[in-house]
């Protein structure tokens, strides 16, 4: 489903301490595409991702996924919105420590009426042999794979990745980016990656650059290269 943002404004604080973080963001991310949100610290990219993810409210403006418009939703409606449309991957994997890999992924599957096959997914994520391990028995890369599995098992319309490689080394980061690319291609989810790593933009279909709460650049990447070929 297509994601559409219209005139998103967001500020924090009040009076003299008021800081405008997003100043009228409008853009569209095509269904099934991969979009990278780039920008320096404080540019508003994570705030924008959180607004798309329905875990933060915009002061004004609207977010729509297909026909579902997120505007003035109450807490319950927001939960349903996230449940229907979104998968989340964070820099810190946030896995449940006393559940196995398989069970962590099932936590995501539980939220969907038509989840992907958990065993199949674990095989494609390279987690099959680790399925009965608990998070502290895994490497950082394996934990992030599990977190991706948990996010995509419900086959969400949009996969939101907040600095997914931020805590990983170069090789593992590339592995994870390859995996996200595979997921995007295999399951056709729209993927939005927030990163400060400039190199990642090369694997995206669309690159949006933010600075001071405004879109400075929003362009289609015509020279898209596979994640495996990324270098930084």
């Amino acid at each position, binding site marked *: 489903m297509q994601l559409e943002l219209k005139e998103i404004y967001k500020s924090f604080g009040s009076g003299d301490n008021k800081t405008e973080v997003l100043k009228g963001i409008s853009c569209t991310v095509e269904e099934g595409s991969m979009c990278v949100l780039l920008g320096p610290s404080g540019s508003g990219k994570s705030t924008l991702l959180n607004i798309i993810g329905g875990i933060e409210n915009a002061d004004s403006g609207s977010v729509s996924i297909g026909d579902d418009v997120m505007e003035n939703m109450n807490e319950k409606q927001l939960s*349903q919105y996230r*449940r229907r449309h979104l998968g989340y991957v964070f820099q810190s994997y946030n896995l449940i420590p006393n559940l196995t890999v398989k*069970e962590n992924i099932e936590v995501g599957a539980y939220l969907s009426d038509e989840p992907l096959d958990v065993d199949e997914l674990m095989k494609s994520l390279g987690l099959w042999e680790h399925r009965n391990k608990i998070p502290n028995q895994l490497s950082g890369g394996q934990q992030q794979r599990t977190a991706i599995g948990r996010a995509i098992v419900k086959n969400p319309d949009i996969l939101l990745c907040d600095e997914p490689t931020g805590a990983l080394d170069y090789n593992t980061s590339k592995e994870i980016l390859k995996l996200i690319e595979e997921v995007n291609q295999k399951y056709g989810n729209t993927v939005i990656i927030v990163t400060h790593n400039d190199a990642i933009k090369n694997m995206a279909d669309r690159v949006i650059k933010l600075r001071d709460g405004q879109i400075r650049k929003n362009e289609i990447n015509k020279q898209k290269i596979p994640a495996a070929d990324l270098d930084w």
Partner: protein
Amino acid sequence: MKNPLNRRLLREFKQDLGKYISLFLFLCLTISFVSGFLVADNSMKIAYDESFDKYQIENGHFALAAEMPSQVKEKLEKEDVKINELFYKDFSVRKDDTLRIYRSRKTVDKTCLMYGDMPQNDSEIVIDRLYAENNDISVGDTIKADGKKFKISGLVAFSDYSALFKNNTDMMFDANRFSTAIVSDEAYDSLSDTNEVYCYVWLNNDTSLNDQQQADKADDIMDILKETGLLTDFVKRSDNQAIVFTGNDMGSDKSMMMMLLYVIVVILAFVFGITIKSTIEKEASVVGTLRASGYTRSEMVRHYLILPVMITLIAAIIGNVLGYSCMKEIVVSMYYASYSLPTYTTIWNTDAFVSTTVIPCLIIFIVDFVILHTALSLPPLQFLRHELQRKKKKRVTKLKRGKFITRFRIRIILQNIPAYLTLFIGIMLASVLLIFGMVMSPLIDHFKVEVKDSLISEYQYILKAPVETKNKDAEKYCVNSLNIPDGESITIYGISENSKYLSDIDLPENQNEVIVTDGYMEKYNLQTGDTIKLVKKYEDKEYQFKIVGHYYYAAALAVFMPTSNFNDTFEMENDYFSGYFSDDEITDIDDLYIASVIRSNDLTVLTDQLEDSMGSMFPLISVFSAVLYVLLMYILAKLVIEKNTASISMIKILGYSNREAGRLYNSSTAIVVLFSILINIPISYLVMRVLYYIFIKELNGWVNFYVAPWIYPAMFLIGVVCYFAVHFILMKKVHKIPMTNALKNIE
């Protein structure tokens, strides 16, 4: 698909086994005891209530100075009642015990045979089961009454003596030194008639009368009896302590037990709530991720609620099973140790099940639901950012003064206020239980000493008629018994103005002025200068006295006046007297003229009985409260350690030794614990004092509230020892925290 989060529950349980098992065991133990109590109480109460019909318990009885003339009986029976003779003879047996012997009872106030057989011949007797047990008497033993030996053929429960009150005006029943008994008619007739009491009981023909109608009928009967001039005693069933005391006591214990259970469950609900809240704080990012992925707040609340509710439910179910099996027997044996009750059948008690299963689960559910609902109401982003304060602190509490260590400890205390508050309240409850468990035995012992110290004389003789003695130690006195309107009896003493036994009493000169015992003043909130109103039972006479002073006499609620005033007040001859005070035994008065002899032992029946009924309970209560101390201290102090695992790990990296790190964190808890114990000692004293006065005011007589001075340091010591045990475990926990922990948890 089942919620996969549920699979964590068992692992969560195993991971924190110590905490959950302690909470489970404590809940299970409490519920099993209360459930056992309620089942036993209910079953016994039903047996007690049914005994009224089953054993045809009297609607009242009266005693006459002589056998009832037939015309009086006819007149009474016109009131639609059946009159039955229930004559008895009191004999002194086994030193100073009293055996009240009846003929076999066939129609009214029937007995329940507990062991052995009813008397088959003139030399057999059945006695009360409780008295027998208290005095190690068994079936087959012999007992001597009126010089005759009787073989005990059986032990029975008298339906009209479930509490063994010798006289209805006694402060307390005395199952140690008073028993009822039954012999064959021939054996009864062969016993001396000297002490025979012409007692009659009535049964209403109409069994559907309500309380008021029954009371009206009793008044009508009394009016008829008053006219005869023969009435010496009159007690309607609702006033008969031997019959109703047990039933009233059963009810009062029940509400106390329920209150105890619910207070403990509420405290444990807070313990659960606080520990779960701490788990949520620990795994805030997971909660945030799940919420961001679409898990609703209700799903999360439900998930975190399952464990405490399940633990409570399982504890309640197992507790109920234990309650019905083991605990019931313990409680039943306590009842049988206090009262002379008939046999009973265990009856399934829906109320007990609801009270000990449904309500505790509901309490845990409601308290923890509110805590969790509030804790999880934050938006997912705040969980992801670990910003779990509802409002950001605008100002940090400034701690300018003091050493770094002191300020550090204060910070720990400020960080853990909810946990420490729960700990404080828990210690308060445990302290009240502890003081209750510890205070009663010394209080009873102290009362006995007080009674002995304030004893007027070693012997107080009450005579049937004024008879002179040559004993030089004997001093004449007068005594009468009046009642507080609709209340208990007060002993009125008339004493010599130059009494050697009451030399320190400042007797009033004016008529109708009296000195009142301290216990009487305290029980009824009286002051010097107040006027008291007393009535003569079965007569319409009312007396008013002005209090002009008070006197310390622990044994009874009494009023003192000079003999001359006494005889004027009660319209007696000037030289009238009722008995003698004497430190020497008087041997020159025939037993025929002696109504009773009161020794110091006779004055401590209230406390003796309390000791017999509840004595075994007191140490149990103390142990229970010590367990509660340890449990709360352990769980809540452990929480503080868990909350600060990363910080403890970090300070170890900085170079603090295990011991220093442990001291830094555990000493904050130690300060709170010591402070809580100290503050709660006077609080528990005040609570106990209030509860004690409520309890003791229900009884006839008065026993001063007394806390032995050693109890306060002992309470403090128990608290400290309990904490020391916990402290040892906590120090080990701190030792076990690895330095890598600080690095692992940084996100």
